[in-house]
């Protein structure tokens, strides 16, 4: 077990190192001169040279890479070209917002998706199963900007027109909003995210349940005379949900940085929108920072998935 954990952790470090190398190389290859971007077109060669010297761009590439990596690790992420402010606090603020949204989305979607999946799996090829499959697939087929706008129409404008308490249409959080203050603004984007996750998690759960139901130990449990509920909750689900748990952990990585469209529809200040903003402005240091953070998020989510799987599966825990 400890060996397994150590290996997984080693893979995580290796992944991060490789991505850092890729991110660094790509920014080297991008056309254009960083100093020209910073100083503008009208500047003379002397000023450019001074700038390059200041940023260390005249040093050999490996040296530049390790300096950059060192700064990244120590939290010195530099200054954004476009906003002229420190990157680290900016990114951390957005990360906090993204984590809040991700958490709320998971809390809403996981119980629903898993229940639907279990119900579908237990009723394989029956009308209930068909209805759940068609419904969840239809929803996942719709793009987020459509489902998001429909949700705004219903729960924000629709409710307000009838004079009922409504949810806010825009989720532009004020800076330093507490979780409780933010919660009403999180619900609609989280619901939109849920509609994306729902089909994925539900289908995974359904497949897990169907596969486990066929295993001989389920027959043993039934023929012991245990009631159906005990067989399903105590025997089947424990094994059937293992792959689902992994999927949920991995999707956490996507929720943190992949919600670009949803964040745009709801005007939500998350990491995804920050990345779009940075790309728009060709803000290299900001792009690097957000990309590295995204990769870290995905890698950690994967690690968490592996750990959870090992923890819940005695065949690995006592391998």
């Amino acid at each position, binding site marked *: 077990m400890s*060996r397994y954990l150590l290996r997984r952790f080693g893979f995580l470090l290796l992944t991060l190192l490789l991505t850092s190398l890729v991110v660094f190389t790509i920014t080297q290859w991008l056309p254009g001169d960083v100093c020209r971007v910073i100083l503008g077109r009208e500047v003379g060669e002397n000023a450019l040279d001074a700038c390059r010297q200041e940023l260390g761009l005249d040093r050999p590439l490996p040296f530049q890479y390790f300096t950059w990596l060192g700064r990244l690790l120590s939290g010195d992420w530099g200054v954004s070209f476009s906003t002229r402010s420190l990157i680290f606090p900016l990114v951390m603020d957005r990360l906090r917002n993204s984590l809040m949204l991700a958490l709320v989305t998971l809390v809403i979607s996981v119980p629903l998706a898993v229940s639907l999946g279990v119900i579908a799996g237990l009723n394989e090829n029956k009308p209930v199963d068909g209805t759940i499959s068609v419904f969840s697939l239809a929803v996942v087929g719709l793009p987020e900007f459509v489902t998001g706008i429909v949700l705004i129409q219903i729960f924000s404008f629709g409710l307000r027109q009838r004079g009922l308490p409504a949810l806010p249409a825009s989720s532009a959080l004020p800076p330093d909003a507490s979780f409780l203050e933010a919660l009403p603004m999180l619900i609609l984007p989280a619901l939109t995210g849920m509609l994306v996750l729902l089909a994925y998690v539900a289908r995974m759960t359904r497949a897990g349940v169907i596969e486990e139901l066929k295993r001989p130990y389920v*027959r*043993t449990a039934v*023929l*012991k*005379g*245990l009631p159906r509920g005990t067989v399903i909750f*105590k025997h089947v689900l424990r094994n059937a949900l293992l792959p689902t748990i992994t999927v949920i952990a991995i999707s956490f990585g996507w929720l943190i940085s992949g919600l670009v469209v949803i964040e745009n529809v709801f005007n939500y200040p998350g990491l995804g929108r920050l990345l779009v903003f940075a790309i728009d402005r060709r803000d290299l240091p900001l792009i690097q920072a957000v990309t590295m953070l995204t990769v870290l998020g995905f890698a950690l989510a994967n690690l968490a998935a592996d750990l959870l799987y090992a923890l819940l599966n005695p065949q690995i825990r006592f391998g």
Partner: protein
Amino acid sequence: MITPVLQIENLTVAYRRGGEWLEAVREVSFHVHAGETFGLVGESGSGKTTLVLAVMRYLGENGVVKAGGITLAGRDLLALNPVEMEKIWGKQIALVPQNPGSSLNPSMRIGEQLAEVLRHHFAMDAAEANQHALDWCERVHLPDPDRVANSYPHQVSAGMQQRVLIATALCTEPGLLILDEPTSSLDVTTQAVILDLVRELIRGRQTAVLYVTHNLGVVAQVCDRVGVLYAGEFVEQASARELFSQPLHPYTQGMLASVPLLGKTKERVHLRAIPGQIPPLGELPGGCVFRPRCQLAVQICETRPPLYVSSPDRIVRCHRWAEIQKGQVGDWQLPAVSKMSEPAEDEHRRLVLNLDALQVHYPRHRSLQEALLRQPARKVSAVRGVSLAIPQGRTVGLVGESGSGKTSLARAIMGLTVRSSGSIALLEMPLPISLSQRDLATLRRLQMVFQNPEEALNPYLTVGETLRRPLITLLGRSRAEADREVADLLHAVRLPVSCAARLPGQLSGGELQRIAIARAFASNPVLLVCDEPVSALDVSVQAAILDLLLELQVESGSSLLLISHDLAVVGYLADKIAVIYLGHLMEVAQATDLFRPPYHPYTEALLSAIPLIDPTAGQRPIRLAGDIPSPTEMPSGCPFHTRCPRFLGEICEKETPPWREVATTGKRYYCHIPEDDLRAAQERPPVFGRSLTR
């Protein structure tokens, strides 16, 4: 009259497949009394699993009882709904399933899997149920019950898993115990202790036992009465004693004549296979279901035979049973005389294969703790210094249980696994270690037949393409020449030439193994390695494959290395037999001598563990303690000393035994006990009765 515990009357069970109902079990009647063990024998496709599931009311959604009745202790089971069945399952009917490994929940501790039954059926509280679960672990002789109860299923051996399932089934003292092939996936020495355990636990209890198996030996040793199922019908029902001394149905006779018996070598008898195979459900013949394969079939067999009552409590479904009983037809008891000529002396034969001190190790990863403590990596020793010679035209059998290293040995010879040390010589030329270093001529001379033909043949190549490949690549034939030879090969393995156009999925297991054999013989090899060639096949098909191997070998003059866990199969086909345990040879003897004392204590235990197909034969029970040690923790001294029933003491633990040779027969065995002592101790052979002499 006493009501039987289980009464089945005229039961017909059908499955829906593709819109039509196929009757998998037809008009089956039998009963099991309290304290009685009823055996249900049949090959795959005979309907025995369907019958068991129907009795348990667990047929699934596409299965239905079309006619007949099932009564449990006077109660009509077919009238109960699933919720009512929950009170019967586990309490009144309990099942011990076939595959212990997959029949236990992998993520639940063993003790809990036992305790939940007790809590549910007896409304015990947690503490009481746990205590009872521990008691039952002890009662099924699990070593260290506390530890086992706290373990997960994958942490204990298959034999121990099966003990747990037996405890789970018996802990509620059910009236009916169903054992569905409980030992089929276990080694023969483990099977013996599990059968002992079952007998011990049901003795004195008034449990009715329904024992389902394909193994005639197990039936003979365990059951009081037997029903023989063929293609969904009972062909014969009798007491075990009567059935095995005078089988009345040609199918039963055929099965008994086709099973290799301990000590019967190819020089003395010739196995007689039943031609053909069990018909698939949709294509049952009219009249008697066995007619297409029956050698006694006559005109009248085209009408369906009724169940004739030949004597009280004995039923047979054959028109000609009376003639068979009088001995007018059917000569199953006369051993067919072998076509084999008397063996010549081995000394004059060239050695086709010579293994010298062959070792195969697999590296094993160190645990983190070991790595930190800088302990050297332990290795898994699969084969430890095996020396063995195969003379030209001879068959050498290698017998061992699972984990004995027999497959690693075969793979090292083939070059599929790289050997760690030692040498292999083919026709007195040293053989390169790995497959990629061997030339075409070597590949041509060395061929292999695998255990499972369904997995060994490429499912997307037609039989013709499969057979053509070695002809073209190894022998350099042109396509036209190869096509002609494919026809010859199919003819040699008794298959129609039309088979060449078929895909493996369209053929039965027996036919596929014939094709695998044809493929192996295509390049005219000097040595053919057969790894468990018949163990995936049904009993009535096995004999045909063994005879085919024998014939092809005599014709081609090839040598055979026959690897099997089945001592009777090896004993039938081999000239010389080597017994392997934990990667170490224990005994090497001529096939005829292996079954005569003195034997190595391990061979003795193996012989004693095999259930004989003869209820009257006596067997001295020699049982091995515990499980085969893990190959990472090799015992010091003699590898067998941890389980040896003839353990001497310190010498066995500390010193590696010498190879001793029996002067009269040339038998060699690896043991500290000298020949005379061993002979004296084994004066009473582990197997006696007529099986060895008949």
